[in-house]
């Protein structure tokens, strides 16, 4: 057998290739695509989460949600949470990537430390922050009082501040993803581009807008897309921050609401309808996003 491994393959070779990929394909179809397709069917049923009975009710779940104030509240809470977390993740991520792309003593170690919060389980991030922000014994309140910035302990996990706390904590946990993606791209920008800009007398700011920004536009497009999808559907961080705090309903975003419909009220049909709605919102937003930034999409 001496022919080229990829070109002009006879049908037997093609068949072998297909057979080799098929276990992965079967698992993806069975474990991801089938459940997602099934959730569309499930959203048309009235179904208890734990008992087998089910009844076809057409679009009634969707009609119910349309006039459900809780649905709209959770939608807006989700939008608020996503927009703030995405904005600051991107700004901080890019700024941090620019710093960590410079040469300085101990750079490797610093990069490792700064990326690490992204690698830990969410439950750890949540207990760290709940302890830092504890209203009576937390070190944050201790400092604020000791430095005279606040006069009374602030209830960070109470109704008034829990959204802010969750946003700050999420930025802390997820901006390293942006940092990592941008840093990987920055390292591939040829040094000559900066040398040339320097010779032309360009300031640091102009070097950023004229050399760096055009180079990272493509990856920025992808990163913002991925972060938006993952922040809008973020469940564990938001749910665990709200759990046990008594103020959970002030951060009840769509994913949390879908979970609660399914496992607190046992309405699997409604839960599935919420999942389908999230899916639809994401598809529409992605299409609009690609339309708005066609140029970046081509580079990305």
């Amino acid at each position, binding site marked *: 057998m001496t022919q080229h491994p990829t070109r002009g393959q006879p049908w037997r070779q093609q068949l072998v290739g297909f057979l080799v990929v098929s276990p992965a394909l079967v698992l993806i179809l069975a474990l991801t695509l089938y459940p997602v397709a099934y959730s569309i069917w499930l959203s048309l049923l009235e179904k208890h989460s734990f008992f087998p009975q089910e009844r076809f009710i057409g679009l009634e779940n969707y009609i119910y949600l349309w006039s459900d104030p809780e649905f709209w509240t959770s939608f807006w809470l989700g939008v608020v949470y996503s927009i703030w977390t995405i904005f600051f993740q991107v700004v901080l991520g890019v700024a941090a990537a620019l710093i960590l792309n410079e040469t300085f003593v101990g750079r490797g170690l610093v990069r490792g430390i700064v990326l690490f919060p992204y690698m830990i389980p969410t439950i750890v991030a949540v207990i760290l922050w709940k302890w830092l922000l504890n209203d009576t014994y937390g070190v944050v309140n201790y400092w604020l009082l000791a430095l005279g910035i606040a006069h009374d302990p602030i209830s960070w996990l109470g109704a008034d501040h829990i959204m802010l706390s969750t946003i700050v904590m999420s930025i802390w946990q997820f901006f390293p993803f942006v940092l990592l993606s941008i840093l990987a791209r920055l390292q591939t920008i040829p040094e000559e581009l900066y040398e040339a800009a320097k010779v032309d007398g360009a300031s640091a700011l102009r070097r950023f807008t004229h050399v760096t920004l055009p180079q990272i536009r493509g990856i920025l497009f992808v990163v913002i897309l991925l972060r938006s999808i993952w922040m809008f559907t973020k469940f564990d961080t938001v749910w665990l921050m709200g759990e046990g705090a008594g103020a959970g309903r002030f951060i009840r975003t769509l994913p949390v609401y879908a*979970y609660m419909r399914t496992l607190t009220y046992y309405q699997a049909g409604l839960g*599935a309808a919420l999942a389908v709605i999230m899916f639809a919102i994401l598809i529409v937003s992605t299409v609009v996003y690609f339309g708005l930034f066609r140029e970046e999409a081509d580079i990305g």
Partner: protein
Amino acid sequence: MSIWRLRRLSARGSIYLGAGLLVLQAAFPFFWMVSTSFKPPTEVFAQPPSFIPEDPTLDNFRRLFTATGFLTYFRNSLVVSGLAVLLTMAVSAAGAYSLTRYRYPGREKIAGLILCTYMFAPIMVVIPFFILVKKVGIENTHFALVLAFTSFCLPFTLWLMRAFFETIPIELEEAALVDGAGRVRAVVYVVLPLALPGIIATSIFTFILAWNDYIFTRILIASDELKTLPVGVQDLFHSALIDWGLIMAAGMMITIPALLFFVTVQRYLIRGWGAGAVKG
């Protein structure tokens, strides 16, 4: 000292300042966790708080190992994540090889499909998954959990392995094939040794992804003795008075494996294909 030199110095200074602030914000919460985990209960709640434990003790760890199900959760996490990684790696290494080495109709469509499922969020999959698992009758088993972990790891792993196989020059296999080696021999003796670093790195990323899961375990597992770490540790909160020393000790014990794995793969992260190496 000339103005030019002064400017350069202040630029250097601001880089070190920025790097210092970045390290501080990332490391302080962990420092605080470690510090708290070695404090006796009275010191945990002391005001003003002590930064270095004045009366360090291992009592929190002793209680964690003897009075809670921590060791069971730890073993469950290892077993379920390990099995999910084995299953995922086996099928995705084969899949990635096929996607980069063979040509057949629909190949690009399959690659597109994988990228698409890579963007699916767990919350959209877990609700129907839960109902289906109940219908099949495997709810509350580790088997269901391994399948669930595989469902969210596989697209990620396959995508990563494909990117990795693309960096291995095809000419080397061609040479082996021309020399009369069969396809299997070419794969075992030429491709695998070259792919090994990528396979190891990808396995670790996949392991971290599985190790960190919360939502699937929360929904699919009801029995205490089958829980994995993230869910088990969350349930430590469900007592009247929150035992922060104990919880911080638990947090530290979950973080250590993550830290060890992270240190081994860190150098892969910042390379070109590293940007695709993370999820969530």
